[in-house]
């Protein structure tokens, strides 16, 4: 496994408790996690285990109840960090903007010159294989294409960190697999620090250096699994013994949770 640099994201004894209507949720309990520079880390767990909440806390979209999240040394208190790029389960593309204008949205929000960034936006669209779709509207793109445009948008301001919240969760299995291959290709070209939330164990094992397995109610880190497969990762990886063993191990960890619940 390659060596990564210094820690970029660090969570120290993070707890998250919130009230939602008449419900109170202990979403995260004592989360300790470090993500190093250029490391690809996935968070897996069943729905309701707090994995998306953790990502939202790191992004500054939700305040933590206790503990501290630091990014590149500064404490996270609010959203809007320019060294972050976010991708959600839906593409969140604006229907009234062309693909190119959607990709340029962060530049516009940061008050930077759209003109200056336009060549970069076109290059990124080429990178995600959307060349020729610059002037199409989101509703004219397929689900996979929309998600690729969302990735280009997340990369436009060259952030250090990519936070991805089940970005391929709404896609069919074939598209998801090709998106994974493509994401790996992009990551090889522009290696970012990536935190990737998913409930697909194969996806997590294929993409990541490390996989964080979470258990629910309250959301805690059950185990962090290292993936002993060297990068670059190609389709061949999917058939390797190391990959099969890793996914098996992840599956066992999750089913152990279910058994523990029953008892």
């Amino acid at each position: 496994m390659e060596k990564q640099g210094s820690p970029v994201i660090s969570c120290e004894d993070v707890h998250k408790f919130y009230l939602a209507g008449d419900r109170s949720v202990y979403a995260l309990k004592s989360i300790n996690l470090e993500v190093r520079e250029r490391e690809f880390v996935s968070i897996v767990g069943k729905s309701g285990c707090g994995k998306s909440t953790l990502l939202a806390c790191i992004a500054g979209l939700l305040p933590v109840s206790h503990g501290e999240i630091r990014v590149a040394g500064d404490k996270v208190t609010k959203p809007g960090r320019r060294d972050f790029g976010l991708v959600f389960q839906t593409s969140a593309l604006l229907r009234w903007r062309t693909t190119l204008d959607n990709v340029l949205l962060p530049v516009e929000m940061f008050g930077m010159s759209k003109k200056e960034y336009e060549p970069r936006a076109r290059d990124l669209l080429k990178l995600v294989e959307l060349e020729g779709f610059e002037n199409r509207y989101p509703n004219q793109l397929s689900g996979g294409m929309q998600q690729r445009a969302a990735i280009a948008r997340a990369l436009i301001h060259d952030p250090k960190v990519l936070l991805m919240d089940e970005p391929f969760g709404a896609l069919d299995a074939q598209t998801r697999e090709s998106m994974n291959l493509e994401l790996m290709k992009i990551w090889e070209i522009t290696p970012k620090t990536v935190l990737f939330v998913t409930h697909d164990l194969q996806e997590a094992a294929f993409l990541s250096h490390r996989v964080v397995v979470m258990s629910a109610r309250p959301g805690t880190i059950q185990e962090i699994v290292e993936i002993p497969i060297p990068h670059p990762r190609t389709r061949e990886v999917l058939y390797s013994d190391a990959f099969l063993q890793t996914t098996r191990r992840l599956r066992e960890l999750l089913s152990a949770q279910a058994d523990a619940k029953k008892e």
Partner: protein
Amino acid sequence: MTTQRLAPAQLGGNDADLFARFYAQEMEQERVKRVRRRVIYAVGRALILGAFIFAWWFTAKFYPPLLVASPAEAWDGFMDGRSEIWKHAPTTVVEIALGFAVGSVLGIGLGALIAQSRLAEVVLRPYIIVSQAVPKIALAPILIIFLGFGVGPKVAIAALICFFPLLENTITGLRRVDPDSYKLFQSLGASKMQVFLKLRLYSALPLIFGGLRIAAVLATLGAIVAEFVAGNAGLGALLVISLGTFQTKLMYAVMVVLTLMAYTVYIITQWVEHKALERTNMLVTHE
């Protein structure tokens, strides 16, 4: 259109040729279907109009002409009273336009304020409902005292009647944004103003225009009713005058003109809506 069965040998040629041929074939079929659909729509509309005019004509036969005018008599009333109608029409048109404009600014403006601030909503909401609960027609004499006998009170009543649905639609539209898009804006550190101008306003466009269409019709209604109660000029006033002087034919003619006027205002608004939504790619077609 005849569809001919092709022998297998005829289906030779490369994909591009076949594509072009099938494309042309499909386009032609689509065109034929479209024309047929339009004819059916037009016939349907004409049938209903015919049935209505027939029912009107048939009913009128049973009443004295002093009380009910037939379609033909209404036409006579229109031809005889043309100059009178043209004299009064501009006043009404001005009242509708101003009432609609004031009501729209009020509806969208207050809607934006309320959608942005919970405090504004809680404080203003009861008074907005009161403004709708108050019998607006009974307000006319009071408004005359403040605004005089001119177009003022009519504009006020038209605006008061038409702003409410627009307000409600604006609030709903501005508040209902795609949650992930909102999260994206937050993650980019967007200000409230940026969220409003670059996200909420666009998302709300379809509902705002829906509200504008309703407001257009209500503004017309408001202006006419206000003239009815407190007017000496305008088509609503002419309606009252013709009623009082037993000019039944003229009254029917004015009624038809007013109906067409409200219809036209709606169609114009719909056209503007179509253009605006088309430009912003917010048009959702059903066909």
